[in-house]
């Protein structure tokens, strides 16, 4: 998973895609996950880290992150890369 390099995310959850002019709002978990993606963390690292702080099982978390990834791809926020 890689975020397109020109995309800016604020801590408050505002995301701007300058290439298209579209803006988005993220909830705090969305921001946290996008930041981890930016830092190059793997899915496993993300689920481990989040489940330490939040009341959620690994399997639900994994499903939710996969689902989130689908939306990010649909909105053109993730790089299309074949090898993740």
């Amino acid at each position: 998973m890689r975020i397109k390099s020109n995309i800016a995310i604020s801590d408050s959850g505002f995301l701007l895609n300058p290439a298209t002019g579209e803006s988005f709002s993220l909830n705090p978990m969305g921001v946290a996950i996008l930041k981890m993606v930016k830092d190059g963390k793997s899915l496993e690292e993300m689920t481990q880290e989040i489940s330490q702080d939040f009341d959620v099982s690994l399997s639900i978390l994994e499903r939710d992150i996969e689902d989130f990834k689908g939306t990010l791809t649909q909105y053109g926020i993730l790089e299309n890369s074949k090898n993740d």
Partner: protein
Amino acid sequence: MSKKKYERPSIKRIENEMPNKFGLRSEYKPMTHIDGVAVKDIIKEHGSPVFVISEKTIRQVYKDAMRAFAIRYPKVQFAWSYKTNYLSAICNVFHQEGSWAEVVSGFEYDKALNNGIPGNKIIFNGPDKTRDDLKKAIDNKSLIHIDHLDEYYTILELADETGLRPQVAIRVNMDTGVYPMWDRFGFNYENGQAWDALNKIMISKKMDLVGLHCHIGTYMMTAEPYGIAAAKLADLAVGLQQKYNHHVKYIDLGGGFAGKNTLKGAYLPGSDTNPSFDDYAEKITSALINSNISPDHLPWLFLETGRALIDEAGFLLGTVIANKRSSIGKRNTILDIGVNILFTSFWYQHKITPAQEFTHHTENTMLYGPLCMNIDVIRENVELPLLNPGDHVVVHHVGAYNMTQWMQFITLRPKVVMIDLEGKIHVIRKGESMNSISDYEGMPKHLTDFKL
């Protein structure tokens, strides 16, 4: 250390906040309690899905409707439209409030009798009254609203046979400026059919012409047509006064008030745009009072309001089965509520709210039911918070027609419970079981066994 509450990640494109076809923001404000009872407790005790009826709301809405008419006209009588919801507990709330019964079949007629309604307070409408139905209605002095001439002639024969005077009215259809015109029931006003029928009745001298009836349509989004309808019925009453010195006892304007639901494809919610009881009452009563009906013989105003009296009191509680995404990435949520029990989702954009608190983050969601059928869509576009499997939702304004038109299809029909004025819950219809279905089947002997 206790862990923080989790909410699944979400991202949403920022668009302008005008009301749009995806619904208004207020829609997803959670409804955790109904009349003080927690939704999650109702589901725990009675299962999901489950219909919930608020007795308090029925009584409030009824009183509001009655007030709107009674402050404008001295003689007002409601008759509960059985087909709208004939669960007996619900009928009896209306009857306790003073409503008579309005029925459209032999089955509904018997149901009203079983509920204890005196025969002379049952209005019998509809095109399908059998000879036996009519005989019973004549014996009981019920108010028979004649739909067609074949029915008239049957009543005439029965009057001779029984030596009784049937209490009759005619149903009139008419142009009220709303199209398509409902002209399949009753006798037409503009082309003279209605007058012909009235003349036949008066000249026969075998029955008592007690009223004039119309039901101009359902979910009428403006009040004006009711003014036109009331004026046309009043005109017939004046004609009877002049020609026969006959005074009808009542004028029945039927049902059809729109209520607070929102039609599919409407941009603004019905609760904001539809006329109020006061609007309808104003048009109807001023048309009657301004007519040439003699004030000494002012007829009763009968109303057969259905959906507008019961919709608001009905809720359908359900549970999220699963979340998925469509091929184009749209959020799809599967509920345990199917179109077979929420028939009105074909016409309405039902208001649907979560039953638990969420953050303000939402997604545009397509809500599917549990049936393995492509048509099983409850809402095509609704802004909902980030629901998880097991979360509960509340569908609003489902009191009318769902509990009479529902289908046993693929799944069994659920329980209906009523919350009384003290917040106590009563089961007013049991959930169906395998026996409710299989008891009605038969098995030919040669089909009882097989080897596989």
